[in-house]
């Protein structure tokens, strides 16, 4: 039996700044994980990843990452994605500055 599909988001790094970006439902690249489009259907996820990979002049290295629905939008499942959504833990640099994380 095939494994059930776990929800995903499309994420990548911005070509110019290099920072983490997320594909939204309205085809923008957002800096915020919570704005990502949560992809609950495998076929749709595959199409959205192809959409992202076509945007070579804007982003680098698009891939599907596990995510789950939360009260304010999609949340990371794996700790790597949680770090990517925040920034490093040794300095208040990266996304956590704008987002007001600790």
């Amino acid at each position, binding site marked *: 039996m095939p494994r059930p599909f776990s929800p995903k988001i499309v994420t990548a*790094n911005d*070509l*110019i*700044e*290099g*920072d*983490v970006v997320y594909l939204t439902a309205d085809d923008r690249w957002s800096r915020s994980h919570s704005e990502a489009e949560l992809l609950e259907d495998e076929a749709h996820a595959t199409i959205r990843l192809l959409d992202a990979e076509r945007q*070579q*002049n804007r982003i*680098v*290295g698009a891939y599907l990452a596990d995510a789950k629905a939360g009260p304010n939008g999609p949340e990371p*499942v*794996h*700790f*790597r994605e949680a*770090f*990517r959504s925040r*920034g*490093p*833990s*040794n*300095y208040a*640099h*990266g*996304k956590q500055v704008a987002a007001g994380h600790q």
Partner: protein
Amino acid sequence: MYRYDDFDAAFLAERNAQFRAQVERRIDGSLTEDEFKPLRLMNGLYLQLHAYMLRVAIPYGSLDSVKMRKLAELAEKWDKGYGHFTTRQNIQYNWPKLPDVPDMLDSLAEVGMHAIQTSGNTIRNVTSDHFAGAAADEIADPRPYAELIRQWSTDHPEFQFLPRKFKIAITGSPNDRAVTRAHDIGLRMVERDGEPGFEVIVGGGLGRTPMIGKVIRDFLPEGELLPYLEAIVHVYNRYGRRDNKYKARIKITVHEAGLETIRDEVEEAFVQTRADFEGVDERVIARIRERFVTPDFVAGGAEALEEAKADPVFRAWADTNLADHKHPDYAIVTVSLKAHGQTPGDATAEQMRVLADLAERYGHDELRISHQQNVILPHVRKADLATVHAELKRAGLATANVGLASDIIACPGMDYCALATARSIPVATQLAERIDTLRIEHEVGPLQIKISGCINACGHHHVGHIGILGLDRAGVENYQITLGGDATETAAIGERAGPGFAYDEIVPAVERLMLAYLEHRTDEGEGFLETYRRLGAAPFKEALYGPEKRKDAA
């Protein structure tokens, strides 16, 4: 310090102009990422977790005040005000933006610095003893040879697409401070019948399959260095496995073919390379030696050191952070970049400028970066040590912990690195803070703790007395401990202690190891590694896992 000539300057300018055009074409869409990636990697530009990362070469870890100030300028102008010194004596900038990188490289070129061959399957920056040119135990300064290797390996047409990256380390001392046995080629200077030469070690490396290098030639006359190195890399280039990334390093080639076979092949190739070189390398090294400016040491003033030790803070620092200089009136100062709770190897732009000023005023304008991620002032008069210490203190750079438990090597780990499987920096900072709270490290004495955030082992965990490896176990950070590793001339790979520890369990686990050592050592003269070698892993496993778990782990 080696002075670069017009050829170096023209070469860098041309290379930087090429890369500027490549970046422009990437941004305007003419180049895809697949096309651009190998080009940016050839210029030291990575894409990491949160941003691009530029790795700048510091050849054999040697620099002067002008170069250090340039590194500070880059940190301030194009990064977030700091830089990270690495275990390969380089510096990494964690936050550059792609369009700025050509300007950064042009700025570096103004002082003869670059990022060439800091990535890719090429011969990487040659590393060396950070006490080179100053150490009391040195046979000869290894840096002219390191510079010779740098010039030979830079843009060497045969070695731009090796099966995998290739790292060479060189030391001029019998005491190995350059981890030569964990490099693809290690060169250790030795003397035979009064003539200097090299013990050539091949096939060492850490990473997924850690191996201690094997001696392929016990004595190579210094004049035959380059043709012999070329013969080794030539054989590796031909036989190294390109079918499997994880089996592509020369350590696997040597392991699979056997040392004897590789030695025979190398010696055969050497007949040809020696003839091809026609002694050109000997003429080049003579020219390099002329261009190395050696300091004019000033005699006298040594008594000031003993007088300054009346201050207990200075004395504690002098006990740990000074090493013997070849000149009796000088000392080698190691400046710790491991203030308890700070990121190992990070220095702010302001701190870099303080170090540059101190080098200029009190250190014959020389600085070194160590693979232990500290900064060295190799030539300081004993008469000036108290002043230097006071200035370092003002800049937050006077931590007295070199060689002790909190002088931890740590790779960037999952706080920055795209390859990492777990974080290493917060483990290092929390461990150092705990050690500081316990006030234990001076009692424990020399102890090397090394932390890697993945199997690639940039944090040298295999050769730490206590090694820590961060892994992803079913979506949770997990830390494996290895014990008994040794990075010196008696190099050894540490042995896995048993099951790993969770993120919040790893600091207490290491604390238990230190306490077990204090309990079991014969006296203060027996170091952690000696106690481990005498007693084996059993008492340490018991400290980690308790009597029950120890049976499971064994």
